[in-house]
């Protein structure tokens, strides 16, 4: 199998990677940054990948690890200043009267326990097999399935709440 060019890899994967990054960070700036960082790592270390068929899994794994590293750093050195308030504002979208939208879904995803979020996002976002999801998250398939079972349950709860809020919000607005 021939190795795709850097531009070829970007063209093929930047959208799904961004979607995954956005589902984890829920801010456009952070998702862009994470996606760019992933391709930067690919540019410098991608040649070490022996099997080009694994490019997709490699990129998703790298993005997820980079996200986790940043999260750990943030938790070790939490920023409680204005920055957090500023970045927190854009993704708190008003509840749509027409029902659930992407923002609500992502907001609900963001409210479930962190270790379920990546599994649930990969479950919905990409046509990754369970084996690939396990590789990306670096956990056994059984762990992926148990995380998904719990994570999807929690997501349903959150979406129900969002839906209820939406309906309530609409009712209040109408009245």
């Amino acid at each position, binding site marked *: 199998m021939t*190795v795709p060019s*850097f*531009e070829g890899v*970007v*063209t093929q994967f*930047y*959208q799904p990677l*961004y*979607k995954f990054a*956005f*589902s984890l960070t829920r801010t*456009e700036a952070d*998702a*862009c940054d994470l*996606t*760019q960082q992933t*391709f*930067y790592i*690919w*540019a*410098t270390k*991608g*040649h070490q990948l*022996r099997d080009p068929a694994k490019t997709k899994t490699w990129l998703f794994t790298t993005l997820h690890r980079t996200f986790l590293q940043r999260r750990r750093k943030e938790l070790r050195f939490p920023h409680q200043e204005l920055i957090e308030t500023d970045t927190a504002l854009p993704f708190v979208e008003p509840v749509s009267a027409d029902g*659930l*939208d*992407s923002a*609500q*879904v*992502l907001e609900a995803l963001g409210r479930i326990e962190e270790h379920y979020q990546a599994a649930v*996002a990969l*479950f*919905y*976002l990409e*046509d990754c*097999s*369970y084996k690939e999801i396990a590789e990306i998250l670096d956990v056994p398939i059984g762990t992926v*399935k148990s995380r*998904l*079972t719990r994570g*999807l349950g929690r*997501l349903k709860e959150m*979406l129900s709440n969002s839906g209820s809020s939406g309906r309530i919000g609409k009712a209040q607005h109408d009245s």
Partner: protein
Amino acid sequence: MTPEEAKRILALYRPGSADQDDPAFAEALDLADPGRQPERRASPLDPQLSRWFREHCAAFLGVRGKFLDIQPPPALKDQILAEYKSHVTPMRSPRRVALARVACVLVVATFLTVFFIRRAQRDFSVYRQRVVAQALRPSYSMDMETNNLAGINTYLAGRHAPADYVLPPNLKSAVPAGCAVIDWHGKLVTMLCFRSGRPLGPGEVADLWLFVANQDDVVNAPTSVSRVVTEADRMATASWSQGGQLYTLGVIGDEGVLQKYF
């Protein structure tokens, strides 16, 4: 499999994905998926489960659609490519890496080849052939023709050739005829010429030679005073090392003739 068990399994099923060929879902799909081909179905369809399954698929596709609505900023791709061009050195493709490896292997192989060829050229067996050939050359000229050994030593020392040699005890009875300094891969080798006292052939000025070289200049040289004796080209030679010097005594004749000088 009960319908409840099937539901638990199918809760993780994603329609339109690779899951439809995943054996982990096969049995549950038989019970729930009306679209499954009859010949692939191992169990009869459960109508109630089938309704639940339809709702599950619709719900999944609905939520998946929300995730797929996420769109990257239009400039993101250009931004990534621009950053790559300005900050990142071009990625080493496996082809380039392979070429670099081949180049490294060639350099190392060339180095080793040259190293071993040079080493082989400086081998003791080559050295011995060389000095024997030098002695047997029909017309070689000595740098200095004299029977004065002290004068020979002074000349050799002036040429920075080995001059602090030790003669075998019985060689002192031979008559010095002169000396020459020969080149051995850039190193100097002393050639002492003697007359054994036997009749010389026409044009011959010596029939007994002692070559002295630095032991380190010859690869695989004898490392002790134990003599290595050979006979070749009507000449017998004995080689040994002593005090860091490599000695090769050659005489026209056989080993018997040679032995009387030790």
